[in-house]
């Protein structure tokens, strides 16, 4: 990346729907997917005379999220009206927060297991609570026909999280989003489901280009472009790559700097894989914010904030560190486990504790448990083998009574037939092979394979592998590593 002639500078604005039962200012349900206009009331449909009342739980969730993002929570916050006309905004204003948001000055630490960038902190300018708008639907085929308005979503609590423009590659932006989503799901304040619109991302992007006339001076900043309509983290990454290339081309032609042109808004077209300019309304920036006279401020003492902070629980970054320190696994592995969510981590910890080998437990969870969860699209709670039974299985592997592949067969039997380790082994006809029996078997193999024995004697220990294969053919229950051990031992004796 360092060979690029510019630095891309990215700030992200993320809107997250909070997982309350009812809306931010009325008691209509927030359930996704209801038939249009069946979850509205006088308040959220903007009827004359209706008044908002703040949802306590929404506020608590927002504070939890803000604290987890290391934000300061001022003692005083208030509600403002952001005014603009749009048919999915029935009051003609959105209740939001302007100059005194509920939180500010935080940060989120990100890192990359693939080491494409150095671990860093991305600053959070502010996080504030506001109400969502409804949805307008337009059938483009129909041309000039009317748009249809559904107000079900209108009034759903949204947390808007605004980062500093401190991400310098699409990969950093993606890591920020991934970590943010993980954090919010750990806090159980949002399901962060992008398909259902619970998490929405807008990006502010521009380029910093070294000034050829002042090599040591500040770089030249190009005009900031706001990119919208990115419906997955992958889309964000691709849109940002595209936008950087596009802006570099525009720069070479126009040499426009920040401030030369009004801020542009572009939409990501997923199919064409390009961003397209969106028409901006010249007066749209005058939102005429003022304090909402229908609502009263929230005052929260430092003590109350501290109480909420104490109840945050263990957050992903701390959890990763604990897994690495307690169970001796690598950052890459702790990242994989923690990214799966708290329930899987709890499963892993129980397993690691019971089998006493964190690395072995990590390998099995990552390779076997996660694969099945993904294949079947189930959660860890629905996984048939509980950690205690799993640990019993791993104990057999640990003392060489089962090799990995036999262990997998046993695991499969435990899952499918709901059997205990012992019953599964019995069903598979796995009996533990007596060592004297095994010595006998190996002696017969050595007698029958002088060439291999000669190879082993010559120092080619890998040749023993062929003998293991033959041993397994004769008795599938043999422990391969013990066979290997015996064969090498007996070969050297044979000389």
């Amino acid at each position: 990346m360092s060979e690029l002639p510019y630095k891309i500078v990215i700030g992200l604005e993320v809107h997250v729907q909070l997982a309350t039962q009812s809306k931010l200012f009325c008691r209509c349900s927030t359930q996704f997917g209801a038939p249009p206009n069946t979850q509205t009331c006088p308040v959220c449909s903007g009827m004359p005379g209706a008044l908002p009342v703040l949802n306590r739980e929404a506020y608590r969730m927002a504070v939890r999220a803000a604290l987890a993002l290391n934000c300061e929570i001022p003692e005083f916050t208030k509600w403002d009206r952001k005014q603009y006309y749009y048919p999915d905004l029935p009051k003609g204003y959105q209740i939001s927060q302007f100059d005194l948001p509920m939180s500010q000055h935080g940060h989120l630490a990100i890192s990359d297991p693939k080491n494409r960038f150095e671990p860093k902190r991305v600053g959070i300018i502010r996080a504030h609570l506001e109400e969502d708008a409804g949805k307008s639907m337009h059938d483009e085929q129909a041309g000039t026909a009317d748009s249809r308005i559904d107000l079900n979503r209108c009034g759903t609590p949204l947390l808007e999280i605004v980062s500093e423009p401190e991400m310098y590659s699409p990969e950093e932006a993606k890591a920020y989003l991934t970590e943010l989503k993980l954090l919010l799901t750990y806090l159980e304040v949002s399901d962060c489901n992008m398909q259902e619109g619970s998490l929405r991302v807008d990006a502010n992007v521009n380029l910093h280009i070294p000034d050829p006339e002042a090599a040591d001076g500040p770089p030249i900043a190009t005009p900031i472009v706001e990119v919208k309509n990115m419906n997955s983290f992958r889309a964000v990454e691709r849109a940002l790559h595209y936008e950087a290339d596009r802006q570099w081309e525009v720069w070479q032609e126009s040499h426009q700097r920040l401030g030369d042109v009004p801020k542009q808004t572009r939409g990501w077209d997923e199919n064409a894989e390009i961003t397209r300019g969106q028409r901006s309304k010249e007066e749209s920036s005058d939102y005429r914010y003022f304090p909402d006279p229908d609502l009263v401020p929230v005052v929260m003492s430092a003590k109350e904030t501290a109480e909420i902070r104490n109840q945050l629980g263990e957050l992903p970054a701390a959890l990763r560190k604990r897994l690495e320190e307690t169970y001796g696994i690598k950052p890459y592995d702790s990242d994989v486990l923690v990214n799966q969510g708290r329930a899987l981590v709890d499963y892993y910890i129980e397993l690691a504790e019971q089998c006493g080998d964190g690395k072995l437990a990590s390998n099995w969870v990552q390779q076997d448990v996660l694969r099945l969860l993904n294949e079947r699209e189930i959660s860890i709670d629905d996984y048939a083998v509980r950690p205690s039974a799993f640990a019993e299985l791993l104990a057999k592997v640990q003392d060489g009574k089962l090799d990995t592949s036999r262990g997998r067969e046993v695991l499969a039997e435990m899952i499918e037939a709901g059997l205990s380790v012992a019953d599964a082994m019995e069903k598979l006809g796995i009996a533990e092979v007596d060592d004297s029996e095994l010595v006998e078997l190996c002696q017969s193999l050595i007698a029958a394979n002088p060439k291999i024995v000669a190879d082993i004697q010559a120092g080619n220990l890998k040749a023993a592998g062929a003998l293991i294969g033959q041993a397994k053919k004769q008795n599938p229950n043999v422990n391969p590593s013990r066979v290997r051990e015996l064969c090498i031992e007996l070969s050297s004796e044979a000389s």
Partner: protein
Amino acid sequence: MSLLKKSAVELVSLLRDGELTSADLTRAYLNQIEEHEGTIQAFLHVDREAALQQAEDLDRRRAAGENMGPLGGLPVAVKDLLCTRGVTTTCASRMLENFRPPYDATVIARLKAAGAVLIGRTNMDEFAMGGSCENSAFQTTKNPWDPERIPGGSSGGAAACVAAAMAPLSVGSDTGGSIRQPAALCGVTGLKPTYGRVSRYGLVAFASSLDQIGPLAATAEDVALLLEVLAGHDPLDSTSIDAPVPRYIETVRQPLEGLRVGLVTDHLAEQLDPDVEAAVREAVRVYESLGANVEEVSLPHSRYGIATYYVIAPSEASSNLARYDGAHYGYRTDESALQAELAAERAAAQSEQEEARLDTPLVRMYRKTRSEGFGAEVKRRIMLGTYALSSGYYDAYYLKALKVRRLIVEDYRAAFQKADVLLGPVTPSPAMPLGHFKDDPLGMYLTDLFTVGANLAGIAGISLPCGQSREGLPIGLHLQAPPLEEERLLRAAHMFQTATDWHRRRPDFVASED
């Protein structure tokens, strides 16, 4: 007919004792409305059948021994900005000409539960903006004392119907004087409660930080009866005060010992009609004769009240009225005419840039809907408020006004250290002739000078009749009290009404009937 000269308190006791049925009483008021409404035009809507139906239901319930509630079958008129389920609620605007709310305002629910018969919807200035009822989109209510004069506003219909004995009790709303000023001009008693004392849920908003619902009636006692029904905490209104409601009707007759009355000198120094000034000074003597101690007090920022109010109220109004855009309810402009208009503009456009500047169909729909649906005064205030909140002007106007508002509140706090109630005129003059302030909006605004302070400070205020002008027009006395001191105001007003009979005077056509 003499029934209609009785006070609400007397009528409730007759109803309770079974000496009078709600149906008979309601019929008497309906007949009075029928007879005089052609001249007065106090009501936008009277549903005779529905009112009688409610009255008969209440009579049946009484016959079955059920508790009727404190109003027990008494008719109540309601200003046409209180949402009532299934009943057209117009705010005297074309915009809401056919709007039927799917819900009841908290106050409406309380009235129903208290056994009120909702007899009709009273006229007002459109969206409560104005002081004469001339801004109603539908009709101009006349002052019952002189049909050539304004009844005041915005609760003009609410005050006129009480003065004309068309209803014993009436509910209005007061944002800058809209209960007290028409009460003064029509010679009735009207109270603006403390901000937050009465729920605003279901009150179509004009300026949310100033609006309060309140009662109008002939006497302080009757006002107490209705206030007790209206007041109380409402979890649906975040600005509602969670404090117990005193039994106003139990205490209203108790005189206040050692009452300290503060005469607001700033309000007498203004250009005041001599008859009004004389009546107010006479009221001072009445209180002195009742044993009160009268002292002069000053509200030094009172002179900035109008300027402050006419920034804050229009700013909030410009926002509150944004929802009337033709998208979800209410009036929408004719869409085929709109499309034709835009097509013609596109055809006439000289260049692509010019064409690009044209409104989109949606924006034009908003603009035409609002321009056709709102009257001139509403548009004027929306423009004023939009300007005051727009970028570059916010600090100079809106923020400045909020700071002066605090100074006004502090003035009142200081004054209430010296006085239990503040006394002064309600209006600079008695009722003006119709059309007097046509094309002079600022002149009209300035008549709110004495009343806006109570709204800006959120305190309680009452207007009660205290005299008549040379032409025989009523003059109102303004008493103000600290937050939640409605009981004190009502007792002070009742004291005055025990010593005077201005509140018993009626326009000739009412007085001569029997």
